[in-house]
């Protein structure tokens, strides 16, 4: 009785050909291994880049340099102007905040922290006047410093505008 039952089951059994399936699976595996290329870990610096606007006072009346008693021409303005001119090799040649020359990027960071952290100033955006020969790598060092700054209202500085300075042109307020 028992034997009879087993024979019956064997007759209806479908055998799966695993060898062929394994061949195919290995082929798929080889394909995925060969095409596997991990993407490099990239970071981003998020910015809001409005087109450059003329430098204006918070109140919309005064212009840079109007106040003769004010020794800092960019004080009381909502746009801070930073000029970066590249040398012939594309490296940072000269740096200035407004008309004050800055020696290097580290000093720029210190100065920016003082200027932007001052609650009496109302800077909201930075205008970067960039020499046309400056390499992107060097520009990113400046952008990096700017994007790390915190405004008096606690927000991170993310508004930047780029203005191109043609070769040989002295930096000036737009």
């Amino acid at each position: 009785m028992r034997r009879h039952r087993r024979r019956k089951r064997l007759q209806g059994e479908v055998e799966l050909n695993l060898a062929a399936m394994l061949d195919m699976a290995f082929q798929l595996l080889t394909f995925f291994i060969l095409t596997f290329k991990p993407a490099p870990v990239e970071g981003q610096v998020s910015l809001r880049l409005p087109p450059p606007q003329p430098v204006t006072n918070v109140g919309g009346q005064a212009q840079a340099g109007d106040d003769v008693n004010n020794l800092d021409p960019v004080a009381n303005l909502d746009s801070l102007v930073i000029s970066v001119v590249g040398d012939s090799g594309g490296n940072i040649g000269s740096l200035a905040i407004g008309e004050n020359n800055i020696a290097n990027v580290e000093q720029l960071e210190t100065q920016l922290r003082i200027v932007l952290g001052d609650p009496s100033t109302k800077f909201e955006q930075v205008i970067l006047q960039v020499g046309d020969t400056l390499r992107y790598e060097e520009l990113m060092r400046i952008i990096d410093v700017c994007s790390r700054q915190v405004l008096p209202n606690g927000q991170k500085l993310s508004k930047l505008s780029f203005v191109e300075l043609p070769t040989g042109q002295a930096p000036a307020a737009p």
Partner: protein
Amino acid sequence: MTPILDMVFQLITFFMLVMNFKSASMDLTLRLPVVGSARPVETGGQEQLLILNVNAKGELIVYNTPRDIDSYIAAEAEAILMVARREHPELQFGDELPTTVVVRADRSTPFSLLNRVIKAAQDRGFRKFSLMAMNKKD
């Protein structure tokens, strides 16, 4: 036989899941600048991205082919504007577009050439930009 098949299928699943189709739009030959404070890309799955690869000669590279900067950005902006109008029908040409422009430029690109790409994007209504950089030297 069955355990080996199980293992192979698991491996296949792994490689299928980690396959990144987005990297096809990135030009991996570009040498990005190194910036310590660069953060990983976070869009929250909401925003659209327009990836612009700019090589050291200032050419715009799209899927390994140099393209004309103005016409490519204009075409993309038009397409994005059409899509954005479905949700905001009041959007006009030149208004701010909801897309973030991802600029992947070579570290030795002169600013004048890079600025052409940024200006072209700004003229078409793009305001949000992401400048891509490596966190550490390779």
